[in-house]
């Protein structure tokens, strides 16, 4: 058990370090902060709304992450496969699941850092008004889980192909599906011909449905379970794909 923890820590440390030795990390952080700011203040009408909340900030995250998270996660396994280092990594004394978990955690930690760097907006809203900071915290938790869900899906598609572009497109499509299943225009379309129960069932698969609850300031066990099972499933699928790739 100790050696498992040490393996996960070592691989995650290496992985996280590799973001910062290339320009990827800095480019991503700058773009992420610019875009979150742009969407929250300009398109989301942060000031014109006249309310002390970060709703206009969080509401864009499912769409913003749709492009940015696959961009961060697409290299996770594709790059290992393309360069042949996967052979090196998996012939070291590690369990494949340790490597899968470590790589996921490293990228997730990086996304958490990017999200944490949006703290000035929290300060701003606190200076200008009197927001519910509990709700903001719940919003951040939801946003982090959302990023984790997209990232786990990207890890899975990244393991499928040695081509990063293929991994990127596949994960965008899958994540888009997870958004659209609960997106109001789509659910409205469904209600015209499907029973309400079916519409609810489809919407329950959507990240948006669960994400919205966090934005209302509610941390519900069901929503946590949803994200946990999505993460678990995607990472398990990653391990199956990697095993099949090796035995094929």
């Amino acid at each position, binding site marked *: 058990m100790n050696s498992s923890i040490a*393996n996960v820590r070592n691989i995650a440390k290496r992985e996280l370090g*590799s973001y910062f030795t290339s320009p990827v990390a800095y480019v991503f952080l700058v773009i992420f902060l610019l875009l979150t700011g742009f969407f929250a203040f300009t398109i989301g009408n942060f000031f014109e709304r006249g309310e002390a909340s970060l709703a206009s900030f969080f509401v864009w995250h499912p769409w913003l992450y749709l492009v940015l998270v696959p961009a961060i996660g697409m290299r996770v396994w594709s790059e290992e496969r393309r360069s042949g*280092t996967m*052979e090196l990594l*998996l*012939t*070291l004394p*590690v369990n494949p699941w340790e490597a899968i978990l470590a790589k996921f955690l490293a990228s997730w930690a990086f996304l958490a850092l990017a999200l944490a760097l949006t703290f000035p907006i929290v300060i701003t809203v606190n200076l200008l008004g009197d927001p519910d900071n509990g709700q903001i915290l719940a919003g951040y938790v939801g946003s982090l889980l959302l990023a984790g869900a997209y990232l786990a899906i990207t890890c899975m598609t990244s393991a499928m192909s040695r081509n990063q572009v293929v991994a990127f497109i596949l994960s965008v499509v899958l994540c888009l599906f997870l958004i659209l299943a609960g997106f109001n225009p789509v659910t409205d379309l469904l209600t015209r011909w499907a029973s309400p129960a079916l519409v609810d069932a489809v919407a329950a698969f959507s990240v948006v449905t669960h994400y919205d609850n966090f934005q209302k300031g509610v941390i519900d066990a069901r929503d946590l379970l949803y994200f946990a099972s999505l993460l678990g499933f995607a990472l398990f699928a990653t391990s199956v794909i990697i095993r099949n790739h*090796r*035995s094929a």
Partner: protein
Amino acid sequence: MINIENLCKTFGHNKAVDGLSFTVERGEVLGFLGPNGAGKSTTMRMITGFLPPSAGRVSIGNYDVAKSPLQAKRLMGYLPENAACYSDMSVHGFLSFVAEMRGLSGDAKRRSVQRVAELCFLGSVLQQQIDTLSKGYKHRTCLAQALIHDPEVLVMDEPTDGLDPNQKHELRSLIREMGRTKAVIFSTHILEEVDAACSRAIIIDRGRIVANGTPAELKNMSEFAGAVTLVAQGADAHKLAALAPAGRVEPLGGGGMRVYPRDRGASAVLVKAIMQLVAHEGWKIEALRTEEGHLDEVFRSITLPDTAKSASAVRDTQAVA
């Protein structure tokens, strides 16, 4: 240390490795030869536990690679084909990472990184990023990685690929040196390496062992082995062929003759008989030597797909089908 029993690997309908069995003991350097696509890399990947075998088993020391992969992998150092490294890391960072993954920390880690850096002549590039290195340095970085925990078993896939002649020479001496205390297996298609570094060699073709022996034994399989080449003025092929121990006589260009012994082991007797004949006839000798046999010729003769072989291969596949 390395024990391989009836190892098989099938990709779709293609049998890449077909019933390999061999062992490598401590103190042995096994050269793994074969033409491209013979199944060398696939075998190496199964030995190191990267690919699961379709059938058969591999054990390292007392550990079955399929059942206790972690223990088996701890005993092994592996240099994969093309020497893949994390190219965004510095040499020192990469070696430290592998050392940590091998359970080394603190002082032990520092010492082992230093040891392999010296062993593989990496001292001058330790702080350099790996993708800025030349191919030879990259290769040695990956080799250093395989040696970092001083493994008892060393598996190397084409370790001298892409090195210059000096580096090749250094690496072969290193392999020979390490072979005294470890079980070493390396694949190559450069035959001179067998002579330079191996205590034993296996030639595989289409996933099967076609020859297994010491370099000397393999050379003896050559049809040249034991033949006597004579260059002398006035030499007469008929008189040479009439000698009791002589078999076929083959004229070479420039007045040379190659005399094959009638029995394979009887080379020394043949040389004596030829010397006596030369003295008796008064031929003027310019050169006289016993052929050692050429590995490349042995290699070609057993791995080239001639018509007889392809016919038997067809029979084999029909039998399998």
